[in-house]
């Protein structure tokens, strides 16, 4: 399992990522108890997945629409947003939408090509867990959260922009 940082500490990673092209039976047969399925599988087989003995989380690719999860967010313990390549910034918006527009309160995880140098911004957009590739030293990556002492904007983390606090 890739290393995980959750709520600012290195944590055990217990969720299995089920790839996009996996079908329902294969997904359910996965050894893991906790599985993250792609939104398309979730939408198609919500009932079957819910009826299985697994804990289910959903992941969104960067070209998926977070608004499509509007009716589900209350039930999901974890939603992951994928960064297929770090340059693809769409998942920053999907993360913010899940938190701001849908008031998603569960774990919001960044998966994929997650760079240490993006984690500060990700956290501001409401992401609270980070799946790290082997190339990243998790201990060192923790420092990313203190890259900046403050920020100007209204963000998921601090809805009051700096000008209201200055």
């Amino acid at each position: 399992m890739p290393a995980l940082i959750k709520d600012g500490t290195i944590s055990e990673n217990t969720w299995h990522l089920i790839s996009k092209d996996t079908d329902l039976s294969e997904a359910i047969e996965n050894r893991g108890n906790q599985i993250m399925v792609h939104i398309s599988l979730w939408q198609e087989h919500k009932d079957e997945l819910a009826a299985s003995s697994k804990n289910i989380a959903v992941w969104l690719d960067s070209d998926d629409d977070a608004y499509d999860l509007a009716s589900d967010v209350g039930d999901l313990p974890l939603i992951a947003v994928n960064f297929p390549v770090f340059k693809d910034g769409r998942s920053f918006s999907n993360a913010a939408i899940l938190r701001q527009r849908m008031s998603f309160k569960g774990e919001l995880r960044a998966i994929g090509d997650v760079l240490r140098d993006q984690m500060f911004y990700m956290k501001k957009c409401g992401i609270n867990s980070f799946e790290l590739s082997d190339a990243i030293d998790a201990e060192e990556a923790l420092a990313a959260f203190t890259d900046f002492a403050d920020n100007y904007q209204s963000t998921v983390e601090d809805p009051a922009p700096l000008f209201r606090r200055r």
Partner: protein
Amino acid sequence: MYIYDAYDKQMLEDRITQFRDQTRRFLAGELSEEQFLPLRLQNGLYIQRLAPMLRVAIPYGCLSSVQLRKLASIARDYDKGYAHFSTRQNIQYNWPVLEQVPELLAELADVEMHAIQTSGNCIRNTTTDQFAGVAVGEIEDSRPWCEIIRQWSTFHPEFAYLPRKFKIAVCGTPNDQAATQVHDIGLYIKKNAEGEIGFQVLVGGGLGRTPVIGAQICDFLPWKHLLTYLDAIMRVYNRFGRRDNKYKARIKILVKAIGADAFREKVEAEWQHDKDGQATLTEEEVNRCKGFFADPDYEEHIDKDASVETHAGTDLLFSHWLERNVTNHKKPGYRIVTLCLKETGVATGDLTDGQMDFVANLADKFSFGEVRVTHVQNLVLTDVRLKDLYELFQACKQESLATPYVGLLNDMVCCPGGDFCSLANAKSIPIAESIQRRFEDFERQKNIGDITLNISGCMNACGHHHVGNIGILGVDKKGAEFYQVTLGGSADRQTAIGKVLGPSFAQEDMPDVIEKIIDVYLNNREDGENFLNTYKRIGIEPYKESVYASAD
């Protein structure tokens, strides 16, 4: 000018620490070339043809003399003694060494300057009219609004990895010298019937491969909604802008593809959530920002000064300079002076360290210690007393900064082109120079009158060639450098994209081609008509006939 408080300073320091560490990790092999790329770009650092190029932001074109002196000392200590003012109110150094860049950035931070987001796929330096705050008939000073946007766009966590670069211009002057309509977002400050301030919002303007004039998506956005509305536009673009093709990734392509109405609907839908939310601007914040741009201590009762006329009567160059480089000011007794950086034989927009120090001294002596940078690559002293004009002019003459060309043919805009830029198809600086030599004679230029000539070394259009009355674009024809000419562009409130004249020309033919185009104008103009208006009246055909007939 805006002055940093503890928050602004801290953020800048944090950024330098962060970039120092990123550079260290890159040099140690912990970050790949590919991973380091967007990080260095967002700190203004390109790898160019000859060396790295560092682009430093001059927020909305405003500089203090202290800052300008620092830019001069950096040119001296880290570069080859000069720097280049770009068409985006930025300044570029062509020879810094990567290892020294964090040090250089720390020096900039000492004077509250930086290279943050001057390149890369993020929100870039916000630009405005260089006469903001002093223009006659101004609707509202754009600088406080630019500063508000600067802060909002700096390190915006959601919009640092956009499909492509993103440029915003704000204009509150009647003439629009900011090329507002060819920006990703163009904001015209307006007043409604009740006298309240708001913004006309245009989106999807831009130059480059596909030149487009921005489409209006909001006629009047009340000022307090500025940031929530910008957030909504950015979110729509970040989510739906194309990412599969670099050349189709700008917001203009998205707006074209779905149409301005559909784009507006998406923005409005997104905006409804945040409208009146926490990011809504407060009067307190706007007033705080406006406070930094209050008028300096202007003297009263100095509106008449006989010395100007006396000197103009005896010094011909001074009278030319008065006519071309000096503009009326909102305050009686004061004038706006443009220093033209277009001395023939000097690369357009280049200034030596000595000249920068010199201009800083002029600013201290004559203009409350402030300098503006224009998007047509000149410098401006905004607050010069009438009675100081002649002294200022004489001082400028000594440093080759008194060229009386402003708005004339030789005041051309020119990107660095093939001499420096790795993306270039062709050189641009030698073209500018050969044309300048041909039209060197001031009386001749004066006779031609108001005209803009813009040169870009490739499709990226940093020289804004599409919106020049005459545009020149460097193209690559089987490995040889050729030049395509467009006519009829303009970048003011009546923005127009120029039309291609026809097949491109060899470098050595360019002065002749331009001369023929000018001759067609001179032979056809009707009483006092400028180049653009004659073109609009007679169309492109006569120019085609003249240029291509004799080229055979």
